[in-house]
């Protein structure tokens, strides 16, 4: 019997698990994927937006502004990268200029720092703005993060504090049971407890948090078909550029927002790459994270409108992600009326990442505090810092190497990742079990060769560390084995 069962280990599931781990509660996290952060948290623009554009009165506006305030300190506390980059919303004509002024006024009412710059002021800061740009709204509180790093570190610390994480566990059904069956349930008001049936057994929770991303509608309708909402996947396709000797942009460049969202952006990343995208197309298939020729061409044509001199010959990767878009245009966050104890955190499309710490705070303050008595744990374990060698001075690296020579052996030549760091990524409490898991944690294969050189070495390290045969090592999902079993033919 768990006090809280969280369905989905994306950014919101991770924030909640981490927060709940501070209290005297039994918490279980069920994740269908092979790793934390395997849905929208993996494939998005990685921006902590200032909060300038959500419509007034929405949860999106409120939580984005608060999330932007919370991120710098949370990233520091969680040993995750945060970089304050600022952002420009750029205008190419008088109509767009008036939108910029509207956004400026809106920002001012939300106490978001902002300033309207003319072309020459904007060009001084961003010399590659396209020739048609006439003005820019500067939003200096905009930042960038590596979303999955935040998620990993939160979940890892949650695990250290006795949260149970079950990966590869798909929820098949959720059923409300009379609470009287379960005498040790801590929730006092609800008449229900919830039985969650999965491919890996059944679990009972007093309270459930549904943070299942694009699948949140399906999860809720398993419990309550009469009060269902619909989540539609809205696909975004992206390009990633290699590290450049001179960055193409120093800050996030937004076009004027439209009903489709913030538009196609040019975004610097934490590790010195550049992200171009996303597109915005509704899609029926919730597994449909594929790219297509027309959409990639669209992204290419759109980014040229805001930024010039983009070196498309430096593209190293394309990818697609699905935004969980709901029916109302706003996030759906709240406790079910029919089923007290069951909480939905749904329709978390942009600015969902930027809002995530505030979403957690909001759920704790308005829902969870009323459901259970929160008593802090007597002892709380902080996760250990893991060394990231490419950021270190030679003398610091040398110290690490003295204790462990495998920090001296470079496996990923593009990103300069050592064997020691790869082994750390597998042995850490929330350790990698797949090639992509290693890549997301410590970055080998993220560079310009995309793993052509280092994948054969990493597959052998994974096999050795996990005591598997190389044929059993997966790229990511079940069935994604790289080396196949048996003789040819």
């Amino acid at each position, binding site marked *: 019997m768990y006090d809280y069962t969280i369905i989905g280990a994306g950014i919101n599931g991770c924030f909640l698990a981490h927060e709940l781990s501070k209290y005297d509660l039994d918490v279980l996290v069920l994740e269908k994927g092979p790793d934390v952060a395997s849905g929208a948290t993996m494939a998005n623009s990685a921006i902590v937006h200032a909060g300038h554009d959500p419509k007034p009165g929405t949860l999106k506006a409120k939580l984005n502004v608060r999330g932007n305030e919370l991120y710098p300190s949370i990233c520091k506390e969680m040993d995750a990268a945060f970089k304050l980059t600022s952002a420009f919303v750029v205008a190419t004509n008088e109509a767009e200029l008036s939108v910029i002024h509207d956004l400026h006024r809106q920002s001012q009412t939300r106490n978001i720092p902002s300033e309207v710059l003319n072309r020459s002021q904007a060009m001084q800061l961003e010399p590659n703005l396209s020739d048609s740009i006439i003005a820019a709204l500067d939003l200096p509180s905009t930042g960038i993060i590596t979303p999955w790093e935040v998620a990993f570190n939160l979940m890892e610390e949650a695990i250290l504090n006795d949260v149970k994480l079950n990966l590869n566990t798909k929820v098949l059904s959720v059923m409300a049971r009379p609470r009287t069956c379960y005498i040790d349930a801590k929730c006092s008001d609800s008449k229900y407890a919830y039985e969650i049936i999965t491919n890996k057994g059944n679990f009972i929770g007093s309270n459930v948090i549904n943070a299942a991303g694009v699948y949140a509608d399906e999860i809720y309708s398993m419990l309550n078909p009469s009060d269902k909402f619909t989540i539609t996947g809205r696909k975004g396709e992206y*390009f*990633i550029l290699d590290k450049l*000797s001179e960055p193409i942009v120093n800050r996030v460049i937004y076009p004027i927002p439209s009903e489709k969202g913030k538009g196609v952006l040019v975004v610097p990343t934490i590790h010195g790459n550049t992200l171009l995208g996303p597109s915005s197309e509704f899609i029926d298939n919730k*597994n449909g*994270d*594929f*790219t*297509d*020729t027309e959409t*990639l061409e669209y992204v290419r044509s759109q980014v040229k409108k805001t930024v010039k001199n983009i070196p498309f010959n430096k*593209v*190293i*990767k*394309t*990818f697609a992600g699905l935004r969980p878009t709901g029916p109302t245009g706003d996030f759906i966050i709240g406790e079910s009326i029919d089923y007290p104890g069951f909480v939905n955190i749904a329709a978390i499309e942009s600015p969902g990442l930027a809002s995530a710490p505030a979403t957690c705070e909001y759920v704790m303050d308005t829902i969870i505090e009323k459901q259970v008595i929160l008593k802090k744990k007597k002892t709380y374990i902080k996760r250990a810092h893991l060394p990231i060698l490419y950021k270190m001075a*030679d003398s610091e*690296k*040398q110290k690490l*190497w*003295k204790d462990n*020579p*495998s*920090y*001296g*052996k*470079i496996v990923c*030549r*593009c990103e*300069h990742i*050592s064997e020691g760091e790869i082994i750390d990524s597998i042995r850490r409490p929330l350790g990698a079990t797949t090639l992509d898991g290693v890549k997301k944690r410590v970055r080998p294969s993220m560079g*310009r*060769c*995309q*793993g*052509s*050189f280092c*994948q*054969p070495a990493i597959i*052998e390290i994974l096999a050795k560390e996990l005591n598997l045969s*190389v*044929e059993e090592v*997966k*790229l*990511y*999902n*079940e*069935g*994604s*084995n*790289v*080396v*196949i*079993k*048996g*003789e*040819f*033919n």
Partner: protein
Amino acid sequence: MREHELIVIGGGSAGLAAAIGAYENGLKDILIIEREGELGGILLQCIHNGFGLHAFGEELAGPTYAERWIYKLVGTSIQVKLDTSVISITKDHTVSYSNKEEGYVKAKGKAIVLAMGCRERPRGAIAIPGYRPAGVLTAGTAQEYVNIKGYNIGKKVFILGSGDIGLIMARRLTLEGAKVVGVAEIMPYSNGLPRNVKQCLDDYDIPLYLSHTITFIDGHDRISSVTISKVDENLKLIPNTEKTFEVDTLLLSVGLIPENDLSEIAGIELSSATKGAIVSNELETSVPGIFSCGNVLHVHDLVDYVSKEGENAGKSAADFVLGRTNSETELIDVTCSNDFGYILPSKIKLSGDSPVEFMYRIKKPMRDVTIGIYSGDTLIRKITKKTLIPSIMEKVSIQKSKLGSNDIIIKLIKEEII
């Protein structure tokens, strides 16, 4: 900080030859830094034959060819560090490297030879649409899995791109019992050597789809199929020409790129045509005392030429260290008309009397071609060729006395496009 007369970055075919070349021209304190556990570079996984006709007058397999060069080190004072990665090089020749034995350390070379080779263009670089499943890998990675590690990578294979490694792997996987269902090439001609098309595809009845490219990769976990489409002369997709092949593996052989990360860190000027360093006829880069050779300079078709270039770079490095070069001399520029992919060297020192060997590649296949090499407006060499194709690098040697003091340009005089 330890100081050497010469540090060679990379112990593959170019680096080995450079070290030997420098040794034979008078240097004694030479260090080769190699990131893998063995010398030989990419030759070690090239277990097919066809290497060494020019260098040794016989056809050898890749590892045997490498071994011949490695044996030349025996009895010399050339030192080797294996399993050692270079992290940076500075303009003043400080090389930072790391390995398990020493950790993170620095060394200095009076001269440096860059011989890091090239890498394959990955899927992302050409933005192939579709899912991102397992079973999509570059031909060279597949070659390492199969030839070095002895793993099976797939049973039903499609290959995109007709580069030489892709062609070689088509034959290799067929011999291992896999079914190679086809090779697609976006250009109307193969990018591999004609002999490889014949010996690796034609001999095994593997279809080559010219003017075709992949428009979709299907399969959420492991690749399940690829769809190809025909392209027109502007490389635009032609609608309703799709063909789908059910496969469990896709190999990519879509181009090689000189691996100049370290050159960029050292502030060396690179050429947008070759993606390698801009070098003089002595293979010296824009940073004095740093030389470049082999596939890190430009992608070669034959390893024999890589070795020759390596030896030349080693000799030039020795001349530099022993003060046998005149750094004051004026350089003339070498350029090519738009019909050519590139010409090397980019610059020529007029001092000295050794002939200059020019290397060039045409952009499109042509027949009955007449090429002119001009000094300013004066034609100094006329070359006629029955055929010219992009996959074959051409060479021509010209005495310095014939070059004059004007900039050199190579142009077409007459051609017929195939």
